[in-house]
């Protein structure tokens, strides 16, 4: 069996900006701009970045909730973007999604049983009796009680609702699940429960995850490989160990040093990054990060850096590696 489950090439998603009486298109938001990557079977790929970096748009494009403006997606070797009709439906069965807000992603007028049964109804699978049994099994699998089947979403807490979303996502035994900030809306003690549940299910059901989050400590906990995004592009992608031990892109380094950590002590914080995230409507020329980058060179304002390095560790930066290691050690000494 092929060990690559999904391959994305040159994915772009531009949203038009329309103005005036005739709604003429006056510009574009380049939410996702020319992204290539692969997802390996059984792994958890993390997408991390700050708001507006395009991580959620990319996640939604991967399951065609948004049609990409350009690019190619191969799922299990077949062309996902060109497929339609029953082929498409069949493929979609294998890619599911868990959303951030468990209050908005469940229909308040449906019972939990109906919600989890929906995927079977849509794909016309199983007899009603079997469905009922399966729904109850799923509820127990995610740590709820089978007797909850006739309750409504509002009767559950945030963590329990997220469990319902998870039950719905795994109902059809998918191969790939896109988790879009699945724990961001939850309290710390509940986050841990959901993260553990996702991990257990991955082992039991042989799932592949794309895990989208802005929280690097959560990303470090769950992901095998991590892609760091900035303004619609991947700036660095590597395995967890490599990325956390040796972050090479200045943005990744800044992101890591911005995380407040327990035990660091009350300290004088050194300002790591100045300025704000630019607008994706009018991104800076060259490297999009250059207005905030502490190592900015002339070339950075003119030329967009491409992802380069070994296949295990790619980064998009003009700095030469040895120059960069030098700078990193200097920064460490300063801190």
């Amino acid at each position, binding site marked *: 069996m092929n060990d690559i489950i999904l391959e994305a090439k040159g994915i772009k998603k531009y949203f038009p900006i329309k103005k005036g009486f005739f709604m003429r298109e006056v510009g574009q938001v380049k939410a996702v701009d020319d992204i290539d990557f692969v997802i390996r079977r059984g792994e958890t790929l993390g997408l991390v970045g700050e708001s507006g970096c395009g991580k959620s748009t990319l996640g939604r494009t991967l399951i065609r909730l948004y049609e990409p403006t350009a690019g190619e997606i191969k799922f299990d070797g077949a062309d996902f973007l060109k497929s339609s009709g029953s082929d498409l439906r069949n493929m979609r069965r294998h890619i599911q999604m868990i959303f951030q807000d468990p209050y908005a992603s469940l229909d308040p007028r449906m019972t939990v049983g109906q919600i989890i049964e929906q995927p079977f109804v849509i794909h016309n699978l199983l007899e009603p009796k079997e469905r009922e049994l399966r729904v109850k099994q799923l509820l127990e699998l995610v740590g709820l009680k089978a007797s909850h089947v006739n309750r409504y979403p509002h009767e559950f807490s945030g963590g329990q609702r997220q469990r319902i979303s998870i039950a719905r996502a795994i109902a059809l035994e998918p191969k790939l699940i896109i988790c879009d900030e699945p724990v961001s809306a939850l309290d710390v003690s509940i986050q841990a429960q959901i993260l553990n549940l996702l991990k257990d299910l991955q082992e039991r059901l042989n799932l592949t995850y794309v895990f989208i989050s802005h929280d690097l400590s959560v990303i470090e906990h769950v992901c095998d490989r991590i892609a760091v995004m900035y303004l619609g592009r991947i700036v660095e992608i590597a395995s967890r160990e490599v990325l956390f031990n040796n972050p090479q892109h200045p943005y990744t380094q800044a992101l890591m040093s911005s*995380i407040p950590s327990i035990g660091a002590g009350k300290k004088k914080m050194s300002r790591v990054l100045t300025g704000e995230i630019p607008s994706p409507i009018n991104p800076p020329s060259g490297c999009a990060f250059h207005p905030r980058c502490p190592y900015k060179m002339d070339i950075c304002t003119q030329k967009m850096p491409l992802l380069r390095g070994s296949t295990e560790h790619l980064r998009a930066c003009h700095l030469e590696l040895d120059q960069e290691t030098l700078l990193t050690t200097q920064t460490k000494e300063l801190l």
Partner: protein
Amino acid sequence: MNPVVEVKDLETTFDLKSGPFRAVNRISYSIDQGQTLGIVGESGCGKSVTSFSLMRLIEKPGRVSHGQFFLNGKEVLSLKEHEIEDIRGGQMAMIFQEPMTALNPVLTIGYQMDEQIQKHLNLNAKDSRDRAIEMLQLVGIPSARERYEAYPHQLSGGMRQRAMIAMALSCNPRFLIADEPTTALDVTIQAQILELFQSLQEKMNMTVQFITHDLGVISEVSDKVLVMYGGQTCETGPTQDLLNSPCHPYTAALIESRPRMGHRVSRLKTIEGSVPAPHEFPKGCPFANRCTRVKTECWTEKPSLQQLSHTIERGVACFNPL
């Protein structure tokens, strides 16, 4: 030296249809001049209600039903409404979590600042404008003169939070309450705001009460910590001491359930169940139904805050501490 802030047996009750609910249940603490107290807890633990009670912003069906709050030796909770207006925004100020909802969307930033400055500092229109612009510059807002004329929606999230800090600090408060001031922000912006906050606190020698659910943030900004659960104090103490050797099972579980960078574990420890609904808290210790070290008396009696033997600064409310 007397502490700037002293809270004694604060109790805030909400008269709900189902009966009275104590959102804050007899909490006491004090903060010395120039120090920061961090209040940590999950949603519904009463940390925001505590702050609103001190600012006298509790509205019906809630009321402060017991307790005292001394600010520089002056009792605040018994003041009349017009007396409190002289203090609120002046001697004590508050920064809210959501700058978009805390600022008035139809008034300019400048107008909202002037209103406060003119009242508390007795300045005329021109001087107050200068003061407002000076404050906006102080918090690092570029082209402060133009921003003074801007409406809240014209600023980004980070800039709005800066504007709110400028507003809160414009009348030189002695006591500042910051209620999750960085929760809605991105991490790199959060780092900028926390840094700004610390340097301003030092410059103005302010006493701060900092509320957050993020233990990492608490660790970096506060001198002392108070951990809340179900409206009660679980544990208090100097920040690093408390985070390094927590005594209350809830504090310990809270620390361990959070993934920490550089300390990867294969499985996170969890706290079973979730925070109960207002009327479903156990009779004794509010944490009893989720605690792994629960004993029989925990169900029937409320543990009081006891000093730890090895240090007078640490307190814990537990019958079976770690």
